[in-house]
Structure formats: C-alpha cells, structure tokens
C-alpha cells in the first residue's frame, strides 16, 4: 500500500477507495503527516535571538546563481555552527494559471512555455500532453520519438548549465581556497581518480577549472549549451520557446538530413557526459574523505517524486485510464520514493496522492465555505483530495510577510502529505530501482544502480554506473545530475536510432490531426519532466475553453514553504540539516557557502512571471514581496 497518511485503501483488485467511516477524509487532523523534522515556532526563534548573541539571522536576498527570484532566510547558531530556522521565499508571483483561464487550450502550449526561459519546451510538451488527454488524441510513434528527442536535448542544455555555471563555482578554487584553506591545501595533493577521462591530475586542478568566468569547465559549459541549442532548433525551430510542439505530436519535418545534422551535435555529448560524471564523482569523494561532515550538507530524507518521461512509442496512448501502463514503459520510470524506498511507479497513484496547500503562501484557500469540489474522483474513479490540482483554484492575495502566516508565492505541494523532492536524479533513482526501463544495449536498470555504456567519441567507450546513494545530500544531487547527462545522452541516442529506423521505412508522420471539442467538460493531465524533474499540467476544458489550469513544477515542490503540520519544505529541511563548515571564527565573515551549496544543489528554477492579470484581462503590475525587513 503506497499511502500511509491519506485515508485511501485498496481492495483486493487494487482499486483504491476512501477508508470507510471517515467523515472528512482529507481534513488536517484526519490525514496527518508522519513524524519528521519540524520548524521551531516563530516565538521560540524570536526568544533565542533575543537571549543569545551568537544566534543571528542570515538572509540571502536574492540567492544568486539560481534561475529566477529566490530569497532565503535563516537563523543560525554560530557557536554550534548549525541552522535553527530556514525559510524559503519565492519572491515573485507566477500567474500562468490565472492567465490561462478562458483561453483556447492550444494557446497553452505557447503561453505556458513562457513560464521558464530555460525549459520552455518542457512546458509546451506538458501542455500538449494534457490537451491530448483531454481531447482524446494520440500522436503517431514517430511524433512520440521526436518529442522525446527534443526534450532530451533540452536537458543536455540544462544540466551542464547548472553543474558548471551555477553550482560548480561553489566547489571552485576561488571559493574554496578563501573559505576552507586547509581543504584547498589538501586538494593540491589529492590525486583525481579518473584523470584518464577528464584529464585533471589533482582535485585542485579540477577546482581551478571550475572557477567562474575563467575556468575551462565554466567556458566549456557555455559552449556545450550552444551544441544542445543547435540540435534542438533542428526539430523545434526555436529555443527556448519551440514552435513545433502540438497536441498529437510534432509539426517538425523529419528527414535524413535533419537527423544527420542532429547526430553531429549529439555525438559531442558522448565524451562530455563521461567527463561530467567522473568529475563529480572525484569531487564528491574528495569532500567526503576530507571531512565526513560534508555528507550533512543539504542532507534530508530521501523523499523524491517524478512522473517519468520519454514515452515508448508503442505504449503511449494519451489516456488517463492506461497511464499506469504507458508510464511504466517510459525510458525514465515514474515513481515516488519515501525514505529511500520506491513505493509506487503508478502515475495514477502519484496523481492521487498529490495535494497543494497554501497556509504559508500568498494565496487564499479555495476549499470550505461551501465551495464545490469539482472532481471528487479522477477519470478512473479513484478518490481525489479537495486540495488536488484538478480541484484547486488559484486566488492570489499579496500581503505582508510573516513567518507565522504567509511568506512566499510558492505553494506547498505534498504527496501523501509528505515533503517530496523533485530533480533529474529522482528519475535516475526510480529508473535504477524499478527495473522497468525498455531494453537497451546502452543502459541497464539493476535494482540498485543504473549501468550506462557510453559510446566512443575521442574517448573510448566507457562504462558508468550510478549507485543509489547511502545518504541524500547536496553532493549526491550534483553527482546524480552529472550522471543524468550520460543517461539523457543515451536516451537521446536511443530516440535518434529509433527515428532513423522508422525513416528507413518511410515513416515521416509526426503528428495526428485533432479538434478541440466545443461541448462538455474534459480533463487532462500532462505527466512530464523538466531538466529539474517533476512537471505536471492539470487542465480542465469547458465548452472548448480552459476552465482551470494548474502547473506544478520541480521548484514548486523543492522551494515549498513549511506546511500546515510544521514540516519544512525540501530546501528548508536541507538547510536545517546543513552544518556551517567554513573555516572562520568570525560570524560576520561567513559567506553562507554550505547553505548556498545546499540550496543550489536542487537547481532552483524560480523564473516565472512578474505580472498579475487584472479582471480587465491585461497584465498590469509587478508584484515583488521581498525578504527585506524580515527581522523587524
């Protein structure tokens, strides 16, 4: 049974039902969250700050080297070098859900793409998937494959960008040497284990090339984003907001010329992905050996969620009814991992367990007061919470910041009432342990690891193996992301091979015609993934127009605030567990490096809109609730 907290049980045939005799099954007290970390109360923190000079607030506003607007408030005990309070603040409003209401669903592909300046295509695709499901339209196999390939290419842009432009500098010489001089001294004499692949003799050499702006790895990452972009536009026309993604497939023209040009670019990632995986292996092991306390940086329970991605062309039928079947045949397996154990790979159960709360967010509640619950069940008759996105109404309510009440524009998604984390590593983990991925000469899911055989480039064919880690922390997130480069490259290569096979048979059909129904109500959900992990778009159509549109992104999960039970969100939990390891005795000289490592390891992506839609239909003003004056 995958739910421990929601009052949902399963009959002998596996059909879920609400536990009998429960009057208000989704009430806070009925379905309680499990034991786990809790924030101290705001009163307690205030008291500690007043009574102890060594306890101070340390605020990051904005958190730099992340995508978009994120602020972070902490209270730290500089004697014990620990964090007492952590609050994640999304400082800008994302209004796409409001903007979408009343529009033609086809607009959603282009409008929701603008939710992100990095991964617009994943939103376009997720939107197309939701529409496909709602209107009953399935793409042809070649359309599924081309779509997969496009998304893989987007990740090949995304992962190096994070690893070597955003997170990488935290491990570079210019950062490590002044903050942890003894560690850097050790790095000078620590030999790297995989010199033969990445070329670095010592860890210090590697750290030097991670230096921002000037380091070779930084500059190389900038170049590789170009290679991925060039490949992407061959089939999507534009980056980051593609023009060829449609419900029912892709409007791209696919031929041998395009695919050959594609391979010229894709092939460059064979060697690059080997290098990345082993650079982050070496870096991680160096830090662990130098000081095991680094295993606590960004540590939290291994609660991860992902919807899977990369459909099998013979399995995907765009229906909710068979989502479990086609979901389990995806190249990246869907799944929910709780305390390190995979509890389900069923997309419908992942969907059923999803709720979104707003206790600490700048939104009004939408349940209660006689509010009608639109969908007590999903299209298969499985119970849904009133807090489920299909039942949610987005009601923004800007107001002052208060840790006891509301302090962020992010909502609080929970699965089975637990704080879950999204990331590309979640898809790696699910796929590794589920043993459900399609057969491949290049990848093997072993139940505890994922084996990858990366073809030769200038470097020889190389076997990589990502292992489910013993601890879950900032280093493992980065290492996982680095291995995801190889995973994604191989998936892209598999799609390329399959497209070529179909082209040989003359199959160039990439889309199915569709019509938007003008009558009735339809539901759809896009189960997809961004470079940063989990992505869903929940859509309700009414007489051909969007009646409700709800987006849950990876950073909606990760940046979420403390919930109604006092459970911190993932960033918050990870920071609360982070020791302050900088080698300075002066609290004012702290750079908050380990806190920032913890946050950045999630690859935060907050860019959204800064605009609100007024009743008149125009976007009218900026809203920016910053973290200034937190302590007042």
């Amino acid at each position, binding site marked *: 049974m995958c739910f421990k907290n929601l009052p949902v049980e399963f009959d002998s045939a596996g059909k879920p039902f609400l536990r009998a005799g429960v009057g208000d099954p989704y009430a806070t007290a009925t379905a309680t969250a499990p034991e786990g970390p809790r924030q101290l109360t705001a009163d307690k923190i205030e008291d500690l700050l007043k009574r102890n000079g060594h306890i*101070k*607030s*340390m*605020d*990051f*506003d*904005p958190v*730099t*080297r*992340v*995508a*978009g607007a994120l602020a972070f408030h902490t209270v730290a005990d500089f004697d014990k070098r620990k964090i007492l309070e952590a609050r994640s603040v999304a400082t800008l409003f994302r209004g796409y859900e409001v903007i979408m209401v009343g529009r033609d669903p086809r607009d959603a592909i282009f409008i929701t793409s603008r939710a*992100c*300046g*990095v991964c*617009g295509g994943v939103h376009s695709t997720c939107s197309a998937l939701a529409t496909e499901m709602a209107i009953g339209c399935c793409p042809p196999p070649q359309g599924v494959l081309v779509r997969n390939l496009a998304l893989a290419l987007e990740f090949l842009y995304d992962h190096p*960008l994070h690893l070597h*432009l*955003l997170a990488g*500098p935290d491990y570079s010489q210019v950062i490590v040497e002044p903050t942890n001089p003894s560690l850097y001294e050790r790095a000078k004499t620590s030999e790297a284990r995989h010199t033969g692949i990445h070329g670095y003799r010592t860890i210090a050499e590697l750290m030097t090339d991670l230096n*921002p*702006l000037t380091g070779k790895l930084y500059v190389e990452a*900038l170049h590789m*984003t*170009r290679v991925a*972009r060039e490949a992407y536009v061959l089939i999507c026309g534009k980056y*980051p907001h593609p023009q060829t993604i449609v419900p029912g497939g892709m409007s791209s023209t696919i031929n041998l010329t395009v695919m050959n040009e594609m391979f010229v670019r894709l092939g460059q990632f064979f060697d690059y992905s080997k290098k990345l995986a082993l650079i982050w292996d070496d870096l991680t092991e160096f830090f662990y050996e130098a000081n095991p306390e680094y295993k606590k940086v960004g540590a939290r329970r291994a609660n991860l969620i992902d919807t899977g991605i990369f459909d099998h062309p013979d399995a995907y039928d765009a229906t909710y009814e068979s989502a479990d079947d086609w979901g389990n045949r995806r190249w990246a397996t869907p799944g929910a991992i709780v305390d390190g154990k995979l509890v389900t790979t069923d997309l419908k159960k992942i969907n059923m367990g999803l709720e979104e709360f707003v206790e600490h967010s700048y939104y009004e509640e939408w349940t209660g007061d006689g509010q009608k619950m639109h969908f007590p069940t999903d299209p298969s008759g499985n119970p849904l919470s009133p807090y489920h996105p299909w039942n949610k109404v987005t009601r923004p309510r800007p107001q002052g910041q208060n840790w006891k009440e509301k302090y962020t524009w992010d909502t609080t998604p929970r699965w089975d009432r637990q704080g879950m984390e999204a990331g590309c590593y979640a898809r790696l983990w699910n796929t590794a342990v589920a043993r459900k991925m399609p057969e491949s000469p290049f990848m093997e899911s072993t139940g505890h690891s994922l084996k990858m055989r990366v073809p030769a480039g200038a470097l020889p064919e190389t076997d990589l193996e990502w292992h489910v880690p013993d601890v879950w922390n900032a280093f493992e997130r980065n290492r996982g992301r680095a291995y995801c480069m190889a995973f994604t490259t191989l998936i892209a290569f598999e799609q390329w091979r399959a497209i070529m096979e179909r082209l040989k048979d003359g199959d160039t059909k990439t889309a199915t015609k569709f019509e938007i129904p003008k009558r009735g109500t339809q539901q759809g959900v896009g189960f997809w993934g961004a470079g940063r992990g989990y992505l869903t778009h929940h859509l309700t159509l009414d007489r051909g127009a969007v009646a409700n549109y709800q987006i849950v992104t990876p950073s909606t999960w990760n940046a979420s605030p403390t919930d109604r039970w006092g459970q911190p969100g993932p960033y918050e939990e990870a920071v609360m567990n982070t020791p302050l390891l900088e080698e300075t005795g002066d*609290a*004012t000289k*702290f*750079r*908050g490096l380990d806190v920032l490592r913890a946050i950045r390891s999630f690859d935060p*992506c907050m*860019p959204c809109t800064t*605009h609100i839609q007024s009743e008149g239909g*125009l*976007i*009218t003003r*900026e809203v920016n609730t910053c973290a200034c004056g*937190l*302590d007042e």
Partner: protein
Amino acid sequence: MRVLAGGIGYPDLCDYSIGIEVQEKLSEREAPPGVVVEDLSYNPIAIIQRLNDEAPDSLFERVVVVSAVKRGDRPSGAVSCYRWDGGMPSDEEVQRAVTDAVTGIIAMDNTLVIARYFKALPEEVVVVEVEPETHEFGAALSAEVSTAFPNICDTVWRCATDDAFVGQLPSGALALTVVPLIRFG
C-alpha cells in the same frame, strides 16, 4: 565599415518592446554596404557565439543597440544616445549577468556586459536608450514613445550609418544594478 545595429527587448511588452519595434522598422530600409540590422533579443551567450562566428577579417567594427531603459530621471519617450564607455561591473556581477543570460533573461545591459567580458564586442558600441512609460502585456506603445518612434528609428539609423554623428556622441555608462548577496541580522 561593418556595423551591426540591433534591438533588444521582449515582444508584446508595450514600451519595453521598443528595441524589437525599431529593429523591425529599420529592417525595411535599404542598408548601405556593411550595415546589418538584426534582432538581438535572445540569450546574450548565443549573441556572443553569433558575433564570434564572424570571419576574423571582417568583424563588426561598431555595434549599435537600442532598448528600453528605465532610468526614471527623464521624461517618458526621451531618447538618450551615447558611446558606451565600456565600464564593467565586478566579476561577481558579471557572473550574475551570465546566470541571468543562461536562464532566460534578455536585457541590454547584460548583453553588453557579457559580450564585452568575453571580448566579442568591437571597441565602438553605441547605445540608444528609450525611457519607457508602460510595462504591460500588449503590442501598443505609449503615446510618448509612439510619438518619439520616428526619431528613435532615425537616431539608430544615423548611429549605424553616419560616422561623423557617432563621433560627436558623448561617452556614457550603462544603468547597472548591483545586488547584495548576504545580510546578517
């Protein structure tokens, strides 16, 4: 002389789209040899890569950019034109600009700072700033910017084609913002 004249902005953002509007209008004119009018409203890193693709023996010798820049100390629709003094922010700020660039922010100051840092720009960079009034979704320019539109187009055109005019322009600095990183309480 090879000159690249480009607009920078987001589409459908009223006055903040002025860079794109001007670039589109100027694209209708017949440019003299060596003058290229282009939309530069995309990832600044990609712009660097595009500039670096030019043949070494025929690099652009002048870049002219036009964009909305809110300074707040001049009337809406005001046009400021200057030769960029090349002043650069700290490396920390350049990093922030790169982060913004690769995560989807399109802004003139970021574009110039990053392109200068990575040595993709010629020595001569001319900036045409337009003080915006409206910052909303939509295609319409405000009355003030709309009135100034022909003048903005002519100014950019002169910057691209009239060496003597450019020679008389003052030198000026970009309107850069600096953000704090950490605050203790």
